[in-house]
């Protein structure tokens, strides 16, 4: 019994940043690399199932360059015995359609019983990978999940799906299944110092596209979800900034609030 958890290293832009030479992304020198917040919740959901039953393996997988190994180590520090990283230069700027193809091959290879992804990643927020992966596999799927009732061997899982405005849907789903996990489904644990130390020794399997029976040409032939033409800093509104010491700022704030309340 195995749960595969695709995780992602995301870029967060610095206060001041420059675009890459081709204008199609931020210059990586101005990005801070972090683990995607949603993946903390999907990984925790998998670990909780692992801990509640015998014989469950949780395997984190990422598609990313060398330093993306950090996100796998971060997972392994909390639990799990091995990780998988897939990379090829052809995957630079890959759109969700390409990532889906790669992950589908990893699923074929690993034969997991469940796949938990984050609902989205906070860098590009496409929210396409999990559900797209399920489609590529022909698996059932459910998105934006905030509750999972399932133990190994159950043919169906009972789920909570977070809808708009505080409404929740309870549904059941056939397994195996791909679920995209929403924030708040659990309280992700922190890694212990011991866990962090142990994680350094855990094996991470590096796979190329060729190892998965894919090539850059295959991905190109299938076409991406889209092609980026350009990125740009949007013209945005800007608040009237209240300057001064905190006391002065607060005083002005009181004035504003009183004016607004008086005028209302």
């Amino acid at each position, binding site marked *: 019994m195995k749960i595969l958890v695709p995780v992602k290293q995301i870029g967060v832009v610095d206060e001041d940043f420059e675009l890459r030479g081709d204008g199609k992304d931020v210059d990586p020198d101005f990005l801070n690399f972090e683990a995607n917040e949603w993946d903390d919740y999907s990984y925790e959901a998998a670990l909780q199932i692992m801990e509640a039953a015998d014989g469950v393996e949780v395997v984190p997988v990422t598609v990313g360059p060398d330093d993306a190994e950090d996100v796998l180590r971060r997972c392994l520090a909390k639990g799990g015995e091995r990780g998988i990283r897939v990379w090829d230069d052809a995957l630079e700027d890959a759109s969700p359609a390409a990532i889906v193809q790669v992950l589908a091959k990893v699923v074929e290879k690993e034969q997991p019983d469940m796949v938990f992804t984050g609902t989205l990643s906070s860098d590009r927020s496409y929210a396409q990978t999990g559900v797209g992966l399920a489609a590529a596999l022909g698996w059932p799927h459910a998105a*934006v999940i905030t509750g999972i009732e399932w133990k190994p061997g159950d043919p169906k899982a009972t789920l909570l799906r977070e*809808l*708009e405005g505080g409404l929740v849907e309870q549904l059941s789903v056939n397994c195996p299944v791909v679920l995209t996990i929403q*924030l708040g489904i659990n309280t992700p644990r922190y890694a212990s110092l011991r866990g962090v130390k142990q994680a350094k020794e855990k094996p991470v399997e590096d796979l190329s596209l060729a190892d998965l029976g894919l090539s850059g040409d295959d991905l190109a032939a299938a076409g991406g979800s*889209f*092609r980026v*033409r350009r*990125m740009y800093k949007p013209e945005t509104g800007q608040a009237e900034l209240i300057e001064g010491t905190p006391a002065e700022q607060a005083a002005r*704030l009181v004035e504003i609030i009183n004016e607004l*309340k008086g005028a209302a």
Partner: protein
Amino acid sequence: MGEILVVAEHRQGQLNPATLETIAAAVNLKGGSDRKIAVAVLAENPDDFVGQVGKAGVDEIVKVPVGVASFQSDTYEAAVLALAEARKPSVIMLPHTVDTWGYAPAVAVRGGFGCATDVFEAKYDGDELVAVRAAYAEKLHMEVDFPGKDTVVLTVRTNVFKPSEDDASPSVSDFAAPPAEARTTHMKFIEPEQTGDVDITQAEYMLSIGRGVGEEDNVEEFKELADTLGFTLGCSRPIADNGWLPKSRQVGQSGKTVAKCKVYVALGISGSVQHMAGMKHVPNIIAVNKDAEASIFTIARYGIVGDMFEIAEELREQM
């Protein structure tokens, strides 16, 4: 020139108003061209919604009876794929909602279609479809196109396009969706808990706290501050997820929209798209945040770049 096919969305018998916004986005994309706009209504009884989607610019309403009363991903995927196969639309437009998160990417993968989500602008550059969406927490916009794709799935950000108030008399047709094996089963809807707490959708003055509050023990002082100011206390998602305030206090897409709010003070809230969906309409937003680049400042009327605790302390002393 393929049509623009909009797929209507509904839940619990109510048309999602985002459907009308998506129709407006389609009309906008059509521009001066003679491209047709069709609206597909997937429902147990499509007639329930036909009268509501015949807005100006819609040429045809396609009734697609499906055997499920509420959203079911396999059924919707099969129906939209069959519509795409039969009608060869250039663009399939859906509102960017929790339901479409659950099936639009699957339609794109199975159909080999182009796909861009959370799009707030779509246009033709010559014959080339171009969509614009945000990246990196709204700090950048990205313009994308879809080379080699005859059909493209776009999910359209809500609260961007203004629905037309004018009705039209589109033709109405029927389409038989193929049977699909439903691998998920709707059990029930769970309504948000009525905690007897305040109803923030009715509040006129709100003070909301976000991640910047740091820890649970700090929440109390902002409760007191809100009381002192005569404001209703609200919060962003992480505060409710942590259980520091009840879910009924959460502002945003998965929480509440503060429809009646006149003044909204956001303390330590950076301004995710999901949070802003619930409050960006408020005419007077006052934001306090340490990060001068926080998105909240792009929609706020007044801003203070600073420490929410220092400002709160001064406010308490001065009130």
